[in-house]
């Protein structure tokens, strides 16, 4: 059906040449599009299928519950399904002192079944909040949470369990979800759970923000927290019972308590330390009363409200054009715990800033290769471009070796800037990470000319193993400098980046993506160019224990906080600092009569954190540990060595009547510090399978459309399709 001895291509065309050609082109294009669609679909199906099938099976067993507003789950027994105990009422009391909020939540539940049931109490905590009191009351019995040393807590739990009493280890495995089991709830009984926790509030652009979870919509999430010491069998049981299962939890009990209208009463007392310009809630109508002592009391205008949305409250202290400082105190056993809070001035920062001596250290080790080095280059170039005439600067690069752009910091002028930009643009990532010599070089520059603010910018992913040594180096050689860490890449060593900035009296900046470079660096530099106060010093009574010992600088947008503990109660404290080129100072009345709850606990947390740092710096753990334990026990804090255990003192039934099912002696609370958790998990799948599949598909396509020699006769079927250009022929080429 083709012409015979003719050259290829055009002669092969059917008589109606051009139309045929167009048609052939169209069909070729269509085949291509079809093939790529099929390919995409195949990849999608394979990927989704592989993901969905085993996950669905596992998530049932592995998921963890996430609750809003606190809930009490009744565990399944024999033939009865798990259920949610109706919540009858919630009362919330929040006391704010400066930046510390102490919250007491009292919740009443009922066990609507006619049987002894066991419950798991779940409460979502605001970020960075730590529970220090827990109390469960039911039918005249009281289960009190106590902070004990870990081993003692575990023993108390085990003993109570073996004697058939109620016991529960309070667990805070995920930073923001708190669970405890309350075993053996009597039939039809009312259960009152009181939980107290403390948090440090968010301060953002002159405004303090408080958010309290009230809505009780349960959320279902695949996966969840990780506990490392749970025996596997207990895990699965926990899975059965803690896991939410909408069908089983729902119907039978909802009508009894009608969780949609579980009423909430709420009151917030705010001691802001400053006159308040405004108190606002975007979620609820509120009434504000001013108390004679300057505090403000906030109540819900409607009195009792349904628990259908979270409470959001914000207030703005009136600071004025100068920075302001306030002190809050808590007195206990002859000791005074004090918190000094310094706030930046309201409005635009003003005052003349000092010229800067900026040193940029850029990590060009092998771990920075790929997108990381691109981010590092962009961030550094951006920062260099923002330097002002009058500033001085230098750039240091390190991998296995350290390379310095200028022998000593050079004044900013067009030629030095151009040289630096060229230097940075040429940086490539390869080799080892010898960080110490670079840090030493940056911190060893000769004394700056007076009147310069010396800033070191450390651009790295922090992929080092000798963090402790580096932190010691920073502490020892910092002098009057400030060290700002700029964390690069998708998985930086966040712990090191934060600690290095803290030891360097600066702040960390995290850049996860190239697109964030500009925004994050702009924010950092806008802040650094105009510090509101530097070189802050508070005069404390003799013998005061102060954290942090050395105050950071005050920048627009974030307060400076310092906690101390001392004997006696002085009437005033004095604070001094520098504001640009001039001096600044204030006398703070300690308000001898008032006492703010939570200030002592805040100090204790700072102390524990400082003691933990001492271990990092090489102090023997055996010596530091008793100090941490004593502080934690005294202030009722959960720490790396202590945990909260809730034990009932009264046996209710002869031992062995029923085992504790959900109270798993799991991982003890990892503490309140978010740095207690590993951050920055890397991506752990290679593109190899995808590439292989794509390669095979491409090969198949190439085979399908390969040019054929005329007259070979190898695949007449194919040739006819090419030549006839008529009916669609299924090519069957295995896409």
């Amino acid at each position, binding site marked *: 059906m083709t012409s015979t001895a003719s050259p290829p291509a055009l002669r092969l065309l059917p008589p109606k040449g051009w139309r045929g050609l167009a048609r052939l082109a169209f069909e070729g294009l269509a085949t291509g599009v079809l093939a790529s669609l099929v390919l995409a679909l195949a990849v999608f199906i394979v990927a989704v299928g592989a993901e969905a099938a*085993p996950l669905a099976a*596992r998530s049932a067993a592995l998921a963890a519950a996430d609750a809003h507003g606190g809930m009490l789950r009744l565990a399944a027994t024999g033939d009865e399904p798990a259920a949610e105990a109706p919540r009858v009422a919630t009362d919330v009391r929040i006391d704010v002192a400066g930046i510390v909020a102490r919250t007491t939540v009292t919740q009443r539940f009922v066990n609507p079944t006619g049987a002894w049931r066991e419950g798991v109490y779940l409460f979502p905590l605001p970020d960075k909040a730590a529970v220090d009191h827990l109390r469960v009351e039911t039918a005249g019995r009281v289960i009190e949470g106590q902070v004990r040393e870990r081993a003692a807590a575990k023993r108390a739990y085990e003993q109570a369990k073996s004697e058939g009493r109620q016991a529960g280890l309070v667990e805070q495995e995920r930073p923001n979800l708190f669970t405890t089991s309350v075993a053996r709830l009597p039939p039809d009984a009312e259960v009152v759970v009181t939980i107290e926790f403390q948090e440090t509030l968010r301060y953002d652009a002159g405004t303090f923000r408080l958010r309290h979870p009230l809505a009780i919509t349960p959320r279902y999430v695949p996966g*969840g927290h990780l506990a490392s010491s749970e025996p596997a069998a207990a895990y699965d049981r926990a899975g059965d019972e803690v896991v939410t299962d909408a069908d089983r939890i729902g119907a039978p009990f909802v009508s009894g308590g009608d969780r949609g209208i579980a009423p909430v009463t709420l009151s917030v007392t705010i001691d802001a330390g400053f006159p308040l310009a405004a108190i606002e809630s975007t979620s609820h109508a509120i009434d504000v009363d001013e108390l004679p002592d300057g505090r403000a009391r906030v109540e819900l205008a409607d009195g009792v409200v349904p628990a259908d949305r979270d409470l959001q409250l914000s207030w703005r202290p009136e600071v004025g054009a100068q920075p302001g400082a306030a002190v809050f105190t808590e007195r206990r056993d002859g000791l005074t715990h004090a918190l000094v809070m310094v706030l930046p001035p309201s409005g635009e920062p003003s005052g003349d800033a000092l010229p800067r001596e900026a040193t940029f250290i850029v990590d060009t080790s092998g*771990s920075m290769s790929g997108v990381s080095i691109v981010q590092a280059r962009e961030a550094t170039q951006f920062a260099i471009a923002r330097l002002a005439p009058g500033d001085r600067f230098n750039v240091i690069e390190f991998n296995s070796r350290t390379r310095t752009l200028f022998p000593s910091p050079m004044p900013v002028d067009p030629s030095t800037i151009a040289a630096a930009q060229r230097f940075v643009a040429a940086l490539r990532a390869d080799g080892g990470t010898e960080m110490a010599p670079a840090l030493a070089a940056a911190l060893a520059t000769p004394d700056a000319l007076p009147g310069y603010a010396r800033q070191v910018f450390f651009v790295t992913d922090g992929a080092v193993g000798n963090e402790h040594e580096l932190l010691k180096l920073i502490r020892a050689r910092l002098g009057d400098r400030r060290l700002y860490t700029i964390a690069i890449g998708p998985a930086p060593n966040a712990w090191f980046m934060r600690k290095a900035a803290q030891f360097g009296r600066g702040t960390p900046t995290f850049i996860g993506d190239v697109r964030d470079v500009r925004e994050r660096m702009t924010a950092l530099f806008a802040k650094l160019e105009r510090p509101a106060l530097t070189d802050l010093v508070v005069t404390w009574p003799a013998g005061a224990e102060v954290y942090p010992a050395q105050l950071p600088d005050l920048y627009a947008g974030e307060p400076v906080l310092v906690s101390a503990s001392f004997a006696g109660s002085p009437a005033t404290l004095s604070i001094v600092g520098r504001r640009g080129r001039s001096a600044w100072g204030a006398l703070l009345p300690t308000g001898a009569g008032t006492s703010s709850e939570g200030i002592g606990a805040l100090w204790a947390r700072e102390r524990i954190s400082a003691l933990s740092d001492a271990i990092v710096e090489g102090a023997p753990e055996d010596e530091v540990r008793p100090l941490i334990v004593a502080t934690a026990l005294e202030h009722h804090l959960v720490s*790396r060595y202590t945990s909260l255990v809730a034990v009932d003192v009264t046996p209710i039934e002869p031992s062995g009547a029923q085992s504790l099912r959900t109270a798993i002696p799991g*991982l003890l609370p990892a503490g309140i510090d978010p740095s207690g958790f590993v951050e920055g*998990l890397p991506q752990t*799948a290679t593109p190899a399978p995808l590439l292989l599949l794509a*390669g095979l598909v491409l090969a198949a396509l*190439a085979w399908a459309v390969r040019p054929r020699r005329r007259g070979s006769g190898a695949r007449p079927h194919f040739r006819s399709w090419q030549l006839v250009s008529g009916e669609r022929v299924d090519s069957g080429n295995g896409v």
Partner: protein
Amino acid sequence: MLPRLLAAAAVATIVAATAILAKAHVGQAALEIAWRRAQSMGAAPAPWPWADTRPVAKLRAPAQDAEMLVLSGASGRTLAWGPGLLDGTARPGERGNAVVSAHRDTHFRFLANASIGDPLVVERLDGVRVAYRIVAMRVADASRLAIPRDTDLPTLTLVTCWPFGAIAPGGPLRYVVVAEADGGSPQRLTMAASARR
């Protein structure tokens, strides 16, 4: 023209895929040499002059017949050659949590067949051998995953991407396998190890 382009693209992608798998195997062989030398010297040299990592431990899964050298750090570049011990996590065998991450389709493929109770053995550079047993496994979204740094017992946590066998990389899910040291006290383990030597 089109067939040639397609063929070239096919060859390129298949070579790229093979290179990834080959790197994972060849890297381990090169590391093995560095490891032996390190053991005789007592300190790990960089396995190749421009390397930004060094072997820190040997991980063995007897039940799955898998053995591999673990590198320091878990950057993408390191993981191409072997599993990485996350910076800032505990040293294997000591109190705390040692977190090791690797690719699901190369070094940690064996985790697909691991189950609770399986043994894992970590040999450190100093010759100390720590025996672990798998106590928990779960799937979690990486953004919601909270892996504690502090644990009472020496703990080994292996993290890889989930699901195994998926084609496309970059999913949000992680497979977490938690193993605890057999017999508790690391001191005892240390002593046992030095007695063996």
